[in-house]
């Protein structure tokens, strides 16, 4: 199923993308406020798990706590994937798990190894490559749907502190590999495995560095339930919410 629309993405219609990516539904827009907004609307209208919202440009792409995400036309992949999870432990770590799977895929296209920063950022040595924002809609005590928003600077990123995969990298090829990886992350069960923790540690750009937020201390890694671990003068602390700000970062 694909929403009737004249919009195309990299020359492909929604129907062509749905077939190529083996997805039940794809919605394509030239320009939207945020793919997260569209996702919540179509999910409320009973869009199936695996529905993909894709836009060439976002006018109000957003990150955690309403931070703006630059999303220019043709520059990157701005998408939201709708899933309907039922494993609460897996939901706890979905943001981290999606980041891990995305990093593996992006390694194949990036000039350098992709690193991760708790909870939801992807980095190259030159700057921020992308981010993941997970929103879940609850009815009573159960989640109705989860919207996994992903922004990746594929071809260019013309703002300070950002990096892209490369001018010649195909957005279509990245999307074709990214989608199955994110769907696999959403289908995984339980908290992070020992192998996933080891992989996160190998990609963790903050490990061992001094942080100012969410606590003053030294980053000691990530726990199996996704909590950030921070060494402080009073011992190791677990942090479940908030942003990680390193001492050398301005904000």
């Amino acid at each position, binding site marked *: 199923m694909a929403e009737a629309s004249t919009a195309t993405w990299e020359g492909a219609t929604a129907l062509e993308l749905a077939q190529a990516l083996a997805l039940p539904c794809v919605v394509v827009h030239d320009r939207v406020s945020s793919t997260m907004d569209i996702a*919540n609307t179509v999910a*409320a209208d009973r869009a199936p798990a695996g529905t993909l919202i894709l836009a060439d440009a976002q006018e109000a792409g*957003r990150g*955690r*706590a*309403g931070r703006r995400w630059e999303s220019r036309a043709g520059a990157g992949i701005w998408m939201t994937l709708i899933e309907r999870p039922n494993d609460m432990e897996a*939901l*706890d*770590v*979905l*943001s*981290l798990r999606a980041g891990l799977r995305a990093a593996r895929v992006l390694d194949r296209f990036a000039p350098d190894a992709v690193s991760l920063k708790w*909870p*939801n950022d992807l980095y190259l040595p030159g700057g921020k490559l992308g981010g993941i*924002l*997970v*929103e*879940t*809609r*609850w*009815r*009573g*005590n*159960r*989640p*109705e749907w*989860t919207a996994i928003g992903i922004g990746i600077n594929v071809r260019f990123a013309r703002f300070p502190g950002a990096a892209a995969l490369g001018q010649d990298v195909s957005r279509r090829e990245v999307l074709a590999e990214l989608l199955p990886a994110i769907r696999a992350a959403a289908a995984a069960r339980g908290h992070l495995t020992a192998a996933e923790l080891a992989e996160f540690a190998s990609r963790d750009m903050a490990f061992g560095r001094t942080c*100012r*937020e*969410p*606590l*003053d*201390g030294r980053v000691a890694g990530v726990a199996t*339930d*996704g*909590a950030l671990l921070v060494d*402080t*003068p*009073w*011992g190791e*602390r*677990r*942090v*479940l*919410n*908030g942003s990680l*700000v390193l001492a050398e970062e301005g904000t």
Partner: protein
Amino acid sequence: MIDLRYVKKLIEMLDGSSVDSVEISTDKGMKIRISKTPQHRGAVQIPTPVQVPALMPPAAGRLTPADGAVVIPDAEAPRIEPPKSNLLEVKSPMVGTYYAQAEPGSKPYVTVGTRIAKRQVLCIIEAMKIMNEIESEFDGVVKEVCVQDAHPVEYGQVLFRIDPNG
């Protein structure tokens, strides 16, 4: 408003002393109690291990509390109360941080007096890096908003009281 530097200083002083706990009340009704021994007193429960940032609003980001440090603003502490007659309760399905609006500076989803419809989003609870939008399961009018913006909530804590006949 509490001066967080003052609280931090208190924590540091207590940490280096043989005193177990201190409690200070101000003439503006604010009470600060800091204890080295973790205790479950008042309305705030401390999970084990201590989830420090979840005990503070985001503005407290740089605070470095010692074990058992608790800030209890008397007028703001979440309270788990018995249901009030005829009002329907919306409870938190998780432990997390309550946000009244989609992003800082924007309009709250609902306030007291807002008429709401079934499936309408009432608030966000951030938990484990996921923004959880909490829907209403019924139509009605918001009679009570039981939590302050950017404050921690417990599983099962009442967030709103709704009058279905309002």
